């Protein structure tokens, strides 16, 4: 099984989620993160003091998926999260040794 971590722009989340649901991804976990990269941050000014804020709000998706469908998932995310502007984000793929569904105790691909 694979674990796919995608860092995307927050406002693309709904589109990505829908696209994934469409290709049958049954579950995912989302968290709010802050990203640092090529996309520049912004300046904030409070009473004349300028602060450079380098971190931008991003959303991280964690998806566990069986090996066969990993590519498909990556493609779907790439497609929907894409805006062509700096800061669209990255997708990281790694191996998963095991997955357990807590409710049933099922393990492996069955637990996805």
């Amino acid at each position, binding site marked *: 099984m694979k674990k796919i971590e995608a860092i995307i722009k927050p*406002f693309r989340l*709904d589109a990505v989620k829908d696209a994934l649901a469409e290709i049958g991804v049954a579950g995912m976990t989302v968290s709010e993160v802050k990203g640092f990269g090529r996309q520049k941050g*912004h*300046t*904030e*000014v*409070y009473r004349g003091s300028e602060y450079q*804020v380098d971190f931008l709000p991003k959303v991280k998706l964690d998806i566990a998926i069986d090996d066969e469908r990993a590519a498909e998932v990556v493609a779907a995310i790439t497609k929907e999260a894409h805006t062509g502007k700096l800061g669209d984000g990255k997708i990281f793929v790694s191996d998963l040794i095991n997955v357990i569904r807590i409710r049933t105790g099922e393990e492996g691909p069955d637990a996805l």
Partner: protein
Amino acid sequence: METHATRSKTIPTTRFKLALKSLQVFLPVFLMFAKATSAHAADATLDSGDTAWMLISTALVLFMTIPGLALFYGGLVRTKNVLSVLMQCLALTALMSVLWLVFGYSAAFDSTGMEVGKVGLHSFIGGCSKAFLLGITGDTLTGNIPEVLFFAFQMTFAIITPALIVGAFAERMKFSAMLWFSSLWLILVYLPICHMVWGGDGAFFADKGVLDFAGGIVVHITAGIAALVACIVIGPREGYQTTAMIPHNLTMTLTGTGMLWVGWFGFNGGSALAANGDAAMAITVTHLSASAAGLTWMGIEWIIHQKPSALGLATGAVAGLAAVTPASGFIGPIGGLCIGIVSGAVCFLASTSLKRKFGYDDSLDVFGVHGVGGFVGTLLVAVFAAESFGGNQGSLNIGSQFGTQLCAAVVTAVYTGLVSYILLKGIDKTIGLRVTAQDENQGLDLALHEETGYRY
């Protein structure tokens, strides 16, 4: 010079009643001396109690805008725009006040050249002899209170009216465009309408016998219509109807609701320009209307959606407050209750079905709540001001008064709509109304003000 209350109570019998009432207050003293003191002399005396009430009413109405309305609106937008809304309310407070000093007050309340029945330029707009309050000191009186206090009280109305509109184009208008629009709108819409209704003898609507105690026409219909036009001209927010635009902090909105509600006592009660039975009745009916409207809205939701919502209750209450405003000095408790129930139901429909049907993005429902509520109240005042319905307008002919109210409301709405439209289009062609899509995406707080609301 006459007080605000008498100004709006233009029916002869009302005036008579009022005179009687004042008389009664001073009666013991009068009787004791049995001397002929001219009513004018009595008028020209400062009353410390009335002054105290008007001082605090002024504070209360200011409190409605900062922080009341700012919080009410601020909680309804998304996090990234919260400061922009708060700042718009604060900036309007400052800017409208300066304009009010420079010429606003004069254009609204200078009665130079006015006469009952005479229709002329000054039936529609005041003169300029009171610009900068020149010649007016702390000793100059308007009725029983210092004129400068009347100035300040009315100023708070000139602040909140443009501030109400902000809710319609929230989350997308340029700050500079907002300042331009509000300033020009104050001059071209608010000042003339205010003058026509409250300008006293010779003012257009006043002479027609239009009843508007605390601003159903002057405040709520003007703001509501401008809001509707504005949200149509500027267009919906990016992603409207396709993405969820959920209020980011309802506790803030509910806090603002409480403040608006309390502040409204000053708004409507203060419009009596005295601490008397009229003021007392005004705050009572105001409160009852808000209560009834809140419960009505909540009840409808409970039936339709199975669940009553805090936002529904709060919105209903504000609708009830808006609707009772024009009527608050003329009706009794049962009138308050009824206006509340009707406005709760009608504004619910306007803010949900109507909006959905026509697809405009009146982001915070300024039209649905204030515009429609103001309309409802302006019409219903013709019914509930009648003595048979518990009001204090003895001789009122419901039918003809209804016509008068309807005319005034429609004329105001059409005029407001037209001028607002021209202003918005003009600003759009010159400096532009709307931020870029990218700025809208990033949020106005950062894009326009380089600030962030929260950093927990």
